[in-house]
């Protein structure tokens, strides 16, 4: 499987912002730390990472832990992460689904904390503002 790369090593992109949309298929055989590295390496490069299928709770816990260990006062300030549950029309209700667990296929958006700001979130829409550093 090819690595995710920036064609010109991040140079010459001008005002562009790279968005990596990672399929569930690409993630399915990865171990927890491989997933976390894939995400954080992209975020460190200033990219927005979109996961077709979100992380498991245990993986989210590790993601927070590893993110904290990589925060640097002179550069990386952490991540912004947003998820909404899959619209399976289940009977748990919107609020239950929003705050609940065991929601498969939850699309997840992750970006550098200093570049991504959530404007609005509900069960069908995540609206974010992405800025250049």
């Amino acid at each position, binding site marked *: 499987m090819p690595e995710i790369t920036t064609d010109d090593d991040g140079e010459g992109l001008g005002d562009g912002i790279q968005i990596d949309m990672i399929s569930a298929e690409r993630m399915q055989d990865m171990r927890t730390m491989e997933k976390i590295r894939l995400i954080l390496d992209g975020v460190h490069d200033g990219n927005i990472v979109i996961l077709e299928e979100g992380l*498991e*709770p245990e993986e*989210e*816990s590790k993601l927070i832990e590893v*993110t904290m260990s990589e925060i640097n*006062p002179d550069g990386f300030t*952490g991540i912004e992460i947003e998820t909404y549950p899959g619209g399976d029309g289940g009977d748990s209700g919107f609020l*239950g689904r929003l*705050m609940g667990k065991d929601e498969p296929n939850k699309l997840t958006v992750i970006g550098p904390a200093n570049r991504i700001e959530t404007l609005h979130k509900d069960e069908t829409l995540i609206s974010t503002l992405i800025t250049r550093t």
Partner: protein
Amino acid sequence: MQSDSDFESKSGPREDEMGLLTELKSSISRATSSLFAGSEPKRIGIYGPPNAGKTTLANRIARDWTGDAIGPESHVPHETRRARRKENVEIKRNGKSVTIDVVDTPGVTTKVDYKEFLEHDIEKDDAVRRSREATEGVAEAMHWLREDVDGVIYVLDATEDPFTQVNTMLIGIIESQDLPVLIFANKIDLEEASVQRISNAFPQHETVPLSALEGDNMDEVYDKIAEYFG
């Protein structure tokens, strides 16, 4: 060179017997200790986002039942940058007593920027040190949650929107660990507090309103702690 199968055939039964003996001794020890010394105190982690009032609550519980505080309270985010434990807090309810270890944890977040501390009139060097300690504290809190707590009190500021990603993730992580959890809607002494908003956000868990600062509704708080973690 000894093969794996040789090793199993020679040492397997003895290991099994030893394992059974160890298990039996351990069971007897557990039964004896529960008969004569009561069960081990459960470690109850106080979790939540920064500035929800976790340390104020931990101090309220510790002062009410032991006379001592756990740590300093502050309006500056990330004042608690290390998990702090108060052991053997004995809570008496309805003629019974429940003994817990209270673990006050740093507020969980996915980002820490030292510049936020500068807004609280903190010098840059101190702000950088605080942010570094805060990141270590959050990582430590996550580790405690995965490995070292038996139950969780999740504290939320009832004046704030509970629908945040950190709350969603933390509750999901707690549920995935099958830990008993109580949601505490703190700061009900403030006019803009909405307990209902928190109840609606977490319908799968019991929400208890309180003001840790003013000591409002602490009787129900202790009833629920005894009921859930006793």
